[in-house]
């Protein structure tokens, strides 16, 4: 886990880190990924991967419509709104 990787991951996560933080995170994340490397050493050749802690197969619903939020409710937490739309800073310059 080098500083370059930390910068990349921070950018993907939209985190602004200064140089000191990047150095600190590189050290901390290296410990975590080091632990994962340790787990990787275990032989799991005959164990099916577990992607889910329980086996609740086929937990689907039927195609039935239920009431939605009102328009006012939908945007009520938005920092900015305009005529029922969420408003965000310009995406395209």
């Amino acid at each position, binding site marked *: 886990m080098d500083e370059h990787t930390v910068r*990349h991951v921070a*950018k*993907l996560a*939209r985190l602004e880190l200064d140089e000191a933080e990047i150095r600190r995170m590189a050290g901390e994340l290296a410990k975590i990924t080091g632990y994962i490397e340790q787990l990787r050493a275990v032989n799991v050749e005959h164990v099916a991967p577990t*992607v*889910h802690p*329980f*086996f*609740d*197969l*086929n*937990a*689907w*619903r*039927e*195609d*039935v*419509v*239920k009431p*939605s*939020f*009102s*328009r006012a409710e*939908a*945007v009520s937490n938005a920092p*900015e709104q*305009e*005529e*029922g*739309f*969420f*408003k*965000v*800073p*310009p*995406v*395209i310059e």
Partner: protein
Amino acid sequence: MATATTVDFEAVIGLETHVQLKTRSKMFCSCKVEFGAPANSLTCPVCLGLPGALPVVNRQAIEFGIRVGLALNCQIAHSIRFHRKNYFYPDLPKGYQITQHDTPLCFDGVLELPVRDATGNPRVCRVTRAHLEEDAGKSIHLEGGTLVDLNRAGTPLVEIVSAPDLRNAEEAHAYLTTLKRNLSYLGVSELSMEKGSLRCDANVSIRPVGESRFGTKVEVKNMNSFKSVANAINFEIQRQKRILRAGGTLHQETRLWDEDKLETRSMRSKEEANDYRYFPEPDLAPFEIGRGWIDEVRRSLPELPEKRLLRYLDDFKLARAEADYLVTERELGDFFEATVKLYDQPRKIAAWISGELTHALSERNASLADLKLEPARLVELISLVEARKLNNITAKEVFHAMLGTSDSPEQVARRMGKLIEASGAAEDPAVAAAIAEVIAEFNDKAVKDFLEGKEAALKFLVGQCMRKLKGKVDPKELPPLIEKAARG
């Protein structure tokens, strides 16, 4: 040794097609799926991505996905799961899209294209996979900000990924029309590029002929019709050739098609290069798709166009082009068969459908349903021609005039003054007057030739009379009347 300027290139094209499924409710929540509803009127904690909200899969979306897979001749997976695809964009409230990664619902399909290769065999394009995912919301980009409507967020989609088997714009176009044709039989999507229920991106690269490795791939987006997909591919192939021939290099990038300027341009995005950090969706357990379910869906499918085409060729003895055309849309074939049931003249009916009906559909940019044409009315119209109450020309006029109305062809024909009434031409003074005029006008030549037994002269005189009568008479009734008048 060939230099870069003289090398011949071939294009390698793969298409990614997104199809919105017309389930009643969304993929992972119970909000209604509807196009054109007021902004943000169809949202809930799940599709707004509010903390703690949990997705639950819509079973119908899986079933529609299976239908799509079967119509593309795919294998259906027995076990599927969902993944998170992480990226930030304002129309993606959760910060990730729930999609499928390593276990697509459908895979290894194939489409036979209505295009032949150099040896005369039909070209084939493999369908690598078709998987389920959710749609994002819609952004409206304005001067001082972007407005976001999340009604569409969470709408079920099938993403269909073709293999890079296509070699030019024509093949890409043929792939899309075949794909749309097959899916139109399923009733699982509106398939409207205009309304965004069918969207297509193209991956285009070129390589020297004979090279087996792929060149640098460019993804082209923002096409709003099959024609613009073809145009964008053609433009992109030429652009890439120009750059390579000039000794330049290509960059892997996403480019947007500009429909006004008819060119692609680089999408300079602030987004990080594709690094989606896929991982299994922890909020959804895996799904087992039983053999029984797949068989049940297979049995519920309508006859698909590939099979229907063969039946039309064999049972109805249609010409290949006519049969091809009749299976392009399920509605056309259904209409054809319903009409044939009433009137056992398949070739005559097919000619009406591929001729005048198609003409009307494209002229009015309408669907068959819009025209309000019932099979019985077409049969009635054909019967009027058989009974010589209309001729081939006036029948076409009546056909177009009756579309969009609920009047019978006979009513329309009478209103238009085109109907040849039972009294017949013999008693019609207008007919007698027209014949007299024509005989006077052509007395020297054509009438003389006719009386000498020249067949062509009679045809000419009939034609002249028809012109004066503006087609309002059955031409078959004229010869005896002309002869009588000529012999005077």
